[in-house]
């Protein structure tokens, strides 16, 4: 077998290992999806009536749920990524990683197994979150093609954020700090166009909100699901995702390849 097919085979083996872990603890996936679901319910039922009136189109709760969905979906991405950092950090404390390091296997396969596993977990969490949203009245006129594009956008940013979380999980010395480091990611939808339009924010915050990576993602999703203007948001999303993914991958690989005893 060539080295490329070895890499693929080893990564598939590691993915099976991560999926087994996930299957054994399905509560973990449900728990990760639970956070965005709670925020969805909170924002729609507690704040939705008031916020809906303020989003410009002069709507109420029904309009707000449509507005808030992209932010909730990104929050789901961030929540799953937090789980990734935790499970990577936990893995590194296990002796089996030392075993993998002394075996003739593709080095990155341990990490790619985590990444692909978390991507699948993200999609499962998405299904749970969207199902709850549909139950409480989320309606969209999006076509199947637009839905597919939205899923593609989510997969793209999730891929980038998960690689970042893998690196954060590797750089953490304890599982506790691994669970805290990606925390700001779950707050990013708030500091962007996720819950209220950015033009209602004070200048400094608005500047951050408009240029932070999650805003173009949420604008693209909003455009695909509700038909608002997308503009160059899709392009920005692709650029941010590629940049974050590449840098995080290089960082994670460097962290993984250093001597384990130096941790």
């Amino acid at each position, binding site marked *: *077998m060539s080295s490329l097919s*070895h890499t693929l*085979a*080893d990564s598939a*083996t590691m993915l*099976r*290992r991560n999926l*087994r*872990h996930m299957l*054994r*603890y399905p509560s973990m996936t449900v728990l990760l999806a639970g956070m965005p679901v709670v925020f969805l319910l909170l924002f729609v039922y507690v704040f939705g009536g008031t916020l809906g009136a303020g989003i410009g189109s002069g709507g109420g709760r029904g309009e707000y749920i449509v507005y808030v969905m992209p932010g909730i979906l990104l929050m789901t991405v961030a929540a799953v990524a937090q789980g990734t950092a935790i499970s990577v950090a936990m893995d590194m404390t*296990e*002796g*089996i990683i*030392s*075993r*993998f*390091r*002394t*075996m*003739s*296997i593709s080095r990155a396969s341990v990490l790619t197994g985590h990444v692909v596993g978390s991507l699948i977990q993200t999609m499962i969490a998405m299904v749970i979150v969207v199902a709850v949203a549909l139950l409480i009245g989320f309606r969209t006129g999006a076509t199947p093609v637009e839905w597919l594009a939205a899923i593609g956008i989510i997969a793209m940013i999730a891929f980038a954020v998960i690689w970042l979380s893998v690196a954060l999980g590797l750089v953490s010395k304890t599982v506790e700090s691994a669970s805290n480091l990606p925390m700001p990611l779950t707050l990013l939808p708030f500091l962007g166009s996720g819950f209220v339009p950015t033009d209602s924010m004070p200048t400094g915050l608005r500047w951050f909100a408009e240029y932070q990576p999650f805003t173009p993602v949420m604008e693209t999703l909003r455009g695909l699901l509700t038909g608002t203007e997308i503009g160059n948001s899709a392009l920005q999303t692709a650029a941010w995702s590629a940049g974050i993914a590449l840098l995080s991958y290089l960082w994670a690989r460097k962290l993984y390849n250093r*001597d*384990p*005893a130096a941790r």
Partner: protein
Amino acid sequence: MTENLTAAGVPRRAGSSADNASSAISAVGLRKSYGEKLVLDGVDLEVVEGSVFALLGPNGAGKTTAVQILSTLIGADGGRVRVAGHDLVGEPDAVRSVIGVTGQFSAVDGLLSGRENLRLMADLRHLGRAAGRARTAELLERFDLADAADVLVSTYSGGMRRRLDLAMTLVGDPRLIFLDEPTTGLDPRSRRTMWEIIRGLVADQGVTIFLTTQYLEEADQLADRIAVLDHGKLVAEGTAQELKRLVPGGHVQLRFADPAAFRAAVGALSRTLEDIPRDEDALTVQVPSDGRVRSLRALLDLLDAQSVEAEELSVHTPDLDDVFLALTGRPRPSTDTATEKAVTR
């Protein structure tokens, strides 16, 4: 000291060793430090293929670090190492494909079952589905894990985890196996089982084994050659017998019922031995001995011939503390009992 014993710091067979086809491990001048702390200070190792080599030393001597370097887990700061004929730095993957490592801390996946752990190894060794399944079943049977095969490993006992750990190492049929303290923390029965398994590996498959241990007895039971590591330096190397001969602690103590018998015994023993340690008040003598039955019989025969009867006989076999005291002139570090021993001596 015997001929085969090598004092630390003297380069042995350096230069020619790298080309030796029958050497499984050949290391020259291995060095490693963590910050200011020097862990390995110029260690030379030569392990013959098909043999069992034990690295003996107390906690913190550098044993685990040596295994981690030789098994490609961490890099060395200096020295040249060839494992199974491959350069450790230049061809780590070639080394990895022929070695197996069972570490001090169990390298099993607690969230998977025993069978899944073994299948994971089979997949990573690219054995193929059918071959992997067969190898897994065979190893579960051989290591007495078949009953617990489909139970999560996190519920296994220490002995079971250690057996699974070794079974996982064996999935890829490694030619060279590193065992880092394979029985530390196990109960005596599990330890015996482990020893049997290790002996079986050498006898049946002719693999080379590099093991580390804190127990002289374990090295004695398993190893063809033993190297004693202390503070990152080899202080001695040889067979178990050669090491024990260095140790003054191995002796038989005889106690006699009355001063007459005591004097007769000292008289008889003095014909062959000089300066026998004795205690006239306690009526005891200490005769240097390796503790074997043959030499005990010879000793008793000698006394019998003089019609002297010993009231009590006790055998003192040397342990790691004695070896350390003999080799380094100080007790082994980090154990209080060793310090006490040194004081009373």
